[in-house]
C-alpha cells in the first residue's frame, strides 16, 4: 500500500541539516568517546552526579533528535490531513527547535570536555545560530508549503447519521457512538520517551535505587497514554477516556449539557499544544487536528473535545440532547 503524504517531507529539511551538523559535532569529538565524564549538571552549570560514559550522552542526544524529527513529521502530516484551508502550522518548527537546541548544547558540552573545565555554560550564540537559523528556514518552507486538500477535510454531511441516531432513540434501543483520537505521533512519543525514561531507571538501578523506582514509575506512566483519547456518547452520558487503562477524564450527563457546537481552534495559540489543556474559557482534551466539539454545561463550564469528525460528534450529542438541527 502506497502511503500518500499530504505534508511534504522537504519541509523538514532544516531539521535534517541540523541533525547532520549534530552528527558532525559528535564525529569531531570522537576522541572523547568512551571516557568517563560528567553527564548531569545543575542550574549553575556545575556537575551534580558521579561521571558516566560519553556514549550515554551521545546516544541520548541522537535518540532524542530522531524522536523529535519523527514526532514532528507525524504531527505535521496529521495537521495537513485535517486542513480545510492552508494554515500556517507553528508546530512544524518543533523539530528545528529541538534538534537546534541539542546541537547547540552538544557544541558547548564537547567544548567543555576538551578544556576539562567542567562548567557548562548556556550556549547562547550557538542556540541563536542553530535554533534561530533552522527556524527561520523552516518558517520560509512552511510558508511556501503547498496545500494538498484531503478528502476528509471537507465538511461532512451528517444528516444520515443524525437520522440513524434519532431512529435508534425513538425505537428505545441502547446505543453508543464512539470515536478515538490516537495519532501516530502519540505512539512515537510514548515509545520514545517511555523507553528513554526506563533506560535511565535501569542506569540508576544499582547506584540510586529510589531514583530508579521513581523513573520506572514515570516511564510506566508514560506508557499509560498508549491508545490515545476515547470519546463515547450514549443517551445518558458523554465520556472522554485516556490511554491503555481508559482513565476517565470527563463524564458529563447529557441532561447537564446546555449547548454543543463544532469549534475550530489553534492548538498552539489557544492552548499551548496538544493534550489535556486549560485556558480561561474551557478545559480541552485533544491529541490531533484543530477541530472539535465545544460543550457548554448548564453551570457555565465549557469543555472542548478534540474530534476527527466534529460534525458527526456534534450531531450525535445534539440528537442525544433532543435538539434536532
Amino acid at each position: 500500500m502506497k502511503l500518500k503524504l499530504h505534508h511534504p517531507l522537504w519541509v523538514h529539511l532544516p531539521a535534517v541539516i541540523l541533525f547532520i551538523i549534530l552528527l558532525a559535532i559528535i564525529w569531531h569529538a570522537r576522541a572523547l568517546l568512551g571516557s568517563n565524564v560528567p553527564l548531569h549538571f545543575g542550574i549553575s552549570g556545575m556537575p551534580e552526579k558521579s561521571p558516566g560514559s560519553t556514549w550515554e550522552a551521545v546516544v541520548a542526544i541522537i535518540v532524542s533528535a530522531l524522536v523529535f524529527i519523527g514526532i514532528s513529521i507525524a504531527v505535521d502530516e496529521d495537521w495537513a490531513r485535517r486542513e480545510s484551508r492552508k494554515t500556517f502550522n507553528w508546530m512544524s518548527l518543533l523539530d528545528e527547535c529541538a534538534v537546534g537546541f541539542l546541537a547547540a548544547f552538544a557544541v558547548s558540552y564537547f567544548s567543555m570536555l576538551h578544556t576539562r573545565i567542567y562548567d557548562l555554560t548556556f550556549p547562547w550564540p550557538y542556540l541563536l545560530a542553530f535554533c534561530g537559523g533552522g527556524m527561520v528556514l523552516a518558517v520560509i518552507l512552511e510558508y511556501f508549503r503547498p496545500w494538498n486538500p484531503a478528502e476528509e477535510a471537507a465538511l461532512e454531511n451528517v444528516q444520515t447519521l443524525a437520522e440513524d441516531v434519532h431512529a435508534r432513540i425513538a425505537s428505545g434501543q441502547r446505543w453508543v457512538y464512539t470515536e478515538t483520537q490516537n495519532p501516530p505521533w502519540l505512539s512515537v512519543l510514548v515509545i520514545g520517551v517511555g523507553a528513554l525514561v526506563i533506560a535511565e531507571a535501569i542506569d540508576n538501578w544499582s547506584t540510586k535505587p529510589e531514583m530508579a523506582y521513581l523513573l520506572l514509575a514515570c516511564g510506566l506512566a508514560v506508557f499509560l497514554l498508549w491508545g490515545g483519547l476515547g470519546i463515547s456518547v450514549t443517551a445518558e452520558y458523554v465520556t472522554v477516556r485516556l490511554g491503555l487503562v481508559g482513565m476517565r477524564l470527563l463524564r458529563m450527563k447529557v441532561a447537564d449539557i446546555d449547548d454543543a457546537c463544532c469549534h475550530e481552534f489553534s492548538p498552539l495559540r489557544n492552548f499551548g499544544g496538544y493534550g489535556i489543556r486549560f485556558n480561561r474559557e474551557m478545559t480541552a482534551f485533544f491529541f490531533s487536528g484543530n477541530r472539535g466539539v465545544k460543550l457548554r454545561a448548564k453551570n457555565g463550564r465549557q469543555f472542548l473535545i478534540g474530534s476527527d469528525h466534529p460534525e458527526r460528534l456534534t450531531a450525535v450529542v445534539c440528537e442525544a440532547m433532543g435538539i434536532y438541527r
Partner: protein
Amino acid sequence: MAVLISISANDPRPIYLQIVTEVKEQIHRGNLHPGDELPSVRDLAENLGVNLHTVHRAYEKLRDQGVISLRLGQRAKVAALRQQPASREQVEEVLVTRLNELITEAFHLGLSASAFRQLVDELLAEKYGGSHQ
C-alpha cells in the same frame, strides 16, 4: 474512527450477535475501514450496559470470521477486507443454512419464489444502489 453501535431489548437475537451484526453493518456502510479501531471491550460493555463477556464473545466471533483482529494490549482493529470471495464451504456454513431458513419462512408467509426473489433484489439494490451485478 467513529462508530455507532446499538442493541435492542426487543430483538430476539442474543446481544453478542446484535453487536456482531452492528459492527459488520458499519463496515459495510463504509463508516469503519480496515485498520480502524473498535471501542475497548470495557468501554462498549459499560456504555451498552451489558456484561464484559458478552462484548468479548462478540469480538471473538468477529475475529473468528476474519472481520477484526485482536492483539494483546491493543484495541480491536478492523481487518483487511476479503479480496477473494469465500470458499464454497464457508458460504455453506455462513449463508446457505440461513437462506434455507428464510426460504421456509417466506413459504409460511405465503410468498411465492418470484416474490421472494424480487424482495431480495430490492434489498440488494437498496444496499448497492442497483449495481449488485
